[in-house]
């Protein structure tokens, strides 16, 4: 959709769980400066597809991915690709906040430390502070960095997980329903955070909340029964969808 090279490009991607095909021949581009929302009814393949973007499906033994997914023109399913490195470059935030049962500090410091991003303690302190600031959590936790991450509220835990994803300096952040377990205020904070993170990272978000997709994204992809039905500018999708199936879904006529 733009002339600039795409951050990520999927071409003809299909995902099989055993004999069952969950994602059918999906081609889509993810760009910097844009938030791309994946919407669709449960079981439509949107989360499965999202997980192909950092090879999360590798952990499911029956899952098989075909097609091509490029990150900066590099095939992420190529045998030369280091999956640990890939997941540092393409971070992920899940539906349920899942902080490690460690201190707030350690939750954020863990990634940079194992990836060798912080040569000194001072570097690590700086990364932790910067990440927590970008995640909009610093002011709330700076005086209790040694408290357990699991003692935070749900919304704070989710922002901690975002700080943890940011800490390893990723290029792409994948979010799988990051706000669906949160109250409206915590949700608004996450949405505001997504808005602030845009530009620094390419972001793809799966959400069941269409209003949320409309609020946070610039592009929206509608999935149905494993196929990508329509992909376009968010305002176009929500005001004048081209496909009848998209229209039926977003207007609440989905049978």
């Amino acid at each position: 959709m733009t002339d600039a090279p795409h951050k990520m490009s999927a071409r003809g991607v299909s995902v099989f769980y055993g004999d069952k095909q969950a994602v059918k021949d999906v081609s889509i581009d993810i760009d910097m400066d844009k938030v791309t929302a994946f919407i669709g009814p449960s079981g439509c393949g949107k989360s499965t597809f999202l997980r192909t973007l950092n090879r999360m499906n590798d952990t499911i033994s029956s899952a098989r991915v075909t097609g091509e997914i490029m990150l900066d023109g590099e095939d992420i399913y190529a045998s030369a690709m280091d999956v640990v490195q890939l997941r540092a470059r393409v971070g992920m935030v899940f539906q349920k906040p899942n902080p490690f049962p460690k201190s707030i500090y350690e939750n954020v410091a863990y990634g940079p430390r194992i990836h060798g991003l912080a040569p000194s303690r001072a570097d690590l302190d700086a990364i932790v502070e910067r990440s927590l600031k970008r995640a909009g959590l610093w002011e709330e936790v700076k005086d209790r960095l040694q408290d357990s991450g699991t003692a935070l509220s749900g919304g704070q835990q989710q922002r901690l997980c975002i700080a943890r994803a940011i800490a390893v300096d990723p290029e792409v952040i994948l979010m799988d329903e990051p706000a669906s377990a949160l109250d409206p205020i915590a949700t608004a904070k996450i949405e505001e955070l997504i808005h602030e993170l845009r530009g620094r990272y390419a972001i793809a978000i799966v959400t069941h909340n269409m209003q949320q997709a409309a609020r946070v994204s610039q592009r929206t992809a509608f999935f149905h029964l494993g196929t990508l039905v329509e992909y376009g500018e968010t305002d176009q999708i929500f005001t004048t969808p081209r496909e009848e199936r998209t229209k039926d879904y977003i207007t609440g006529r989905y049978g």
Partner: protein
Amino acid sequence: MGTGQEHTVKAFDQDIKQLRALISQMGGLAEQALHDAMKALQRGDTSLADQVRGKDKAIDAIESEVEKLVVRLIALRAPMADDLREVIAALKIAAVIERIGDYAKNVAKRVPLIHTEGEDRIEALSLLPSMAQMASDMVHDALDAFASRDAEGAARVCQRDSALDDFYDSIFRTLVTFMVENPRTVSQVAHLLFVAKNIERIGDHATNVAEMVYFAATGRYLADEAAAA
């Protein structure tokens, strides 16, 4: 619209149905107002003209009902795509119908000024009813198109506006000629000119309604389509 399939949340369909009913009721009242105003004008029936002026309040009342319903619908149902376009169109159409009602009221207001006592009947009067009928039909058909999500019907209404404009131009010339020949009637005929202008404006408003109906139904602007064709 489109699939015609119902919403999963049935109350949403009820709200939309109610909105369409209000618009069609409002349109009916505006058509009736124009019809009665023209009848009063032709017959010099000032009591009928007074009735038209009184009934305008009913149109205004429905307009504010439409406004309230639209605000509630947007707040509670968060309509999207064609639903959103329809709800916004309904809000705008209500404002336009209210204006049409005002023009009819304005025609009624001029009845006693045109039919002053002891004056002869002005021949040129006989030209106006068929022009008014033309404008009224446009309003009627535009609202029918709204009720049935008929983009083609809406487009046809728009095509009729130039015929109405031509009609206005010819009536304008006739009335001016009449004034020149009968200087005694200038003040009454001047009022007739305003009546003709009001009818012409009603046609413009019907065209606006039709354009909104087209956009609500298709998501495309009729003007853009015409330019592309």
